[in-house]
């Protein structure tokens, strides 16, 4: 048994992937059973079509949609939760770091399209380059923001850096809007079409009439995100830097007494959060094809909520929270209109998701996986 758990392959690859799968299966199962139960209960109230049949038909697609957007939220949520763990501070500008990574990645693709090299290069190389560029830019921006806006305020009362973060968020939105206006003159940043990532893989599910269509880009998003999460897990749990991050998160003065360069560790934390956010941004841009300076705002808020839902400061919690929130949103948006016969449409999906969030927090205030931290001496 000891050989089993201390073997690095199991510890750092199999176990995290297994954990992610367990979360996905668990949340999907709970929500699917719930919605099928509701379909049976309300079967009689819908006359145009069979509620149970319609529910089951779209269920696989709803699950895939929910997991996809859940991973995006989870990746952004990790940025929030890591910074909170280390500094006990919510970095509200993180949504704009996400947006900047997305915009930079898409601008690279547009540049390549203008130069004519987009069609000739392998599409996955292009996407890879865009992700790397997005990651580098977002990471650099995150570190800069920390140095400029948060470090000078480190000793100040809690609210002051918070306001600074909110201000930074607005500043970045308008800075990007200004830069876009001056360089391209357009508000929208549109993804140029290329490659085959829009095409479908068909998955035949026994019992379903039509096969489930999953786009290549969805598969790409999930794969890249899982790789990043496994990498992050290894970084935090298996390397010396990770140990230092965990030490600073646990007790900053003692960590500094132990010889850890606290400022550098904090910068590295922001860097990691920024890198994750930038990658999530490029993948999100592939999915939605059109960006503008305000595209980070809503995913950012939802990801922050997901981080709180999972237990703020807890990395696994951010993952679970993101997945749960993504699934809730997807289920809400797709099923509300069908179940209420048009009375409550998809526009109320956020009400549903956040109502459930509030309920969960009432019963578990520290979040799904959070631990109530005692007063630090």
């Amino acid at each position, binding site marked *: 048994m000891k050989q089993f758990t201390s073997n690095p392959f199991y510890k750092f690859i199999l176990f995290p992937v297994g954990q992610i799968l367990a979360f996905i299966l668990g949340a999907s199962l709970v929500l699917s059973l719930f919605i099928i139960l509701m379909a049976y209960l309300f079967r009689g109230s819908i006359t*145009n*079509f069979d509620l149970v049949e*319609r529910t089951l*038909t*779209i269920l696989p*697609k*709803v699950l895939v*949609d929910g997991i*996809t*957007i859940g991973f995006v939220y989870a990746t952004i949520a990790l940025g929030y939760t890591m910074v909170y763990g280390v500094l006990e501070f919510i970095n509200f500008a993180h949504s704009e770091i996400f947006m900047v990574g997305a915009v930079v990645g898409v601008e690279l693709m547009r540049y390549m399209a203008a130069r004519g090299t987009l069609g000739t290069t392998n599409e996955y190389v292009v996407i890879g380059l865009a992700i790397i560029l997005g990651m580098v830019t977002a990471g650099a921006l995150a570190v800069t923001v920390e140095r400029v806006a948060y470090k000078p305020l480190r000793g100040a009362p809690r609210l002051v850096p918070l306001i600074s973060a909110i201000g930074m968020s607005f500043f970045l939105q308008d800075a990007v*809007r200004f830069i876009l*206006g001056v360089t391209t003159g357009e*508000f*929208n940043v*549109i993804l140029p*079409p290329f490659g085959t990532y*829009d095409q*479908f893989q068909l998955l035949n599910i026994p019992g379903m009439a039509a096969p489930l*269509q999953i*786009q290549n880009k969805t598969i790409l998003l999930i794969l890249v995100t899982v790789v990043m999460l496994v990498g992050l897990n290894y970084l935090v749990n298996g390397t010396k830097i990770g140990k230092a991050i965990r030490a600073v998160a646990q007790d900053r003065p003692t960590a500094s007494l132990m010889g850890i360069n606290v400022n550098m560790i904090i910068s590295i934390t922001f860097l990691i959060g920024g890198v994750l956010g930038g990658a999530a941004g490029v993948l*999100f841009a592939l*999915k*939605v*094809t*059109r960006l*503008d300076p305000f*595209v980070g705002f*809503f995913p950012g808020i939802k990801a922050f909520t997901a981080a709180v839902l999972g237990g703020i400061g807890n990395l696994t919690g951010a993952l679970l929270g993101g997945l749960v929130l993504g699934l809730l*949103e*997807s289920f*809400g*948006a*797709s*099923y509300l*209109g*069908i179940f209420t016969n*048009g009375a409550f*449409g*998809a*526009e109320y*999906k956020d009400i549903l998701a956040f109502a459930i969030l509030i309920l969960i927090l009432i019963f578990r205030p520290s979040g799904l996986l959070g631990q109530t931290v005692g007063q630090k001496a």
Partner: protein
Amino acid sequence: MSKRSYALLTVLVTASIVLAACAPGGGGGAAMPIIKIATQSPLSGGQSVLGVDIKNGAQLALEQLGGPLKEMGFDVQLAPYDDQATPDVGVANAKNIVADASILCGVGHLNSGVMIPSSEEYHTANLPFVSPANTNPVVTTRGYLEVNRVVGRDDVQAPVAEEYAFTELGAKSVYIIHDKTAYGQGVAEFFRTAAEEDGLEVLGFEGTEETANFDALITPMLAAAPDVMFFSGIYNQAGVFFKQARDAGYEGTFLGTDGMDTSELASLAGDALTKGGGMVYTTVAGPASAYPKAAQFATDFKAKFGADPQPFAAQGYDSAGVCLKAIENAAKEAGGSVPTRLAVANAIRALTYDGLTGSLTFDSIGDLPMAKYFIIRINATSAETWSSNEIVAELEFASPGAGGP
């Protein structure tokens, strides 16, 4: 002094220098009375492609048609405002516009949802506005003297769209999505009423403010399998939605309204607009090529602004032209002095104006007695080829008046 005081002093000195430099030079000294025409449209943000061209159309009109007023001794200027397609901003700008006494007439807005609250301000100040693009009936059914429009209305446009879907496209079912604004929801409601009257089955009626990820809306729509999909909103939302819906496998026809009438839609949606059932939209403002008198306007516009005019630019030109003519008439009646806003408002209603888009007169609530509606099928897959769209039908209907259809 301490370091902090030095810093504060430096900031204050810099700020005062900057402010002094930015102050408008020479407040006085203008011997000629200034008459301004305001424009309010989205100049920034997701809908700016249409909004900027409305302003540009008005600007061109001021240059080309401002002669008579200049001869009377007035200095005619344009006062553009950016309402960012947001009601709050529109109302705040409206207060500023109303406070500027030299503004005698206005051209705007693009969005009915912004025009309706802003026009309350205009009405209180008797400032007349001519709208180049607002189609929601409520804009004029309140019966304000100050509000006019040079385009048709949604309570005619939506039944026109529905009629086309039902008879020409032979659709048996439709799925309706709107953008929850006064305009979008209004059109969708009218469409739904017309569909129910004709027996066209409405499989879903959803509203959304989502602009990025439409997955969760598309999944139930695909499951319902409608023949036709009607989206009433603005192009920045519609373009992304159509692309994602087509990518997800929807084969039917997309139906839209005038908010989609811009080449930017083709940039956003690409070949989603021509694959499968394609896309058809109704509009109250055709392309400049649809108006025989607008050929010279299109050339002049391109020469001055470097690009072909978007839809509603010609309407912006005509709206400003109406303003200028009305101010000229009112000034003549006032014996050559600057007229009052009320006089201009009355002059607009008394006017018959020969514009690019036709002969314009306004009925008792500010509508055109007869308005044109176009049905256009999209053949373009990029912004450059937007002019390849085909006008399927050009119809003319009387305005329903204050009571509705």
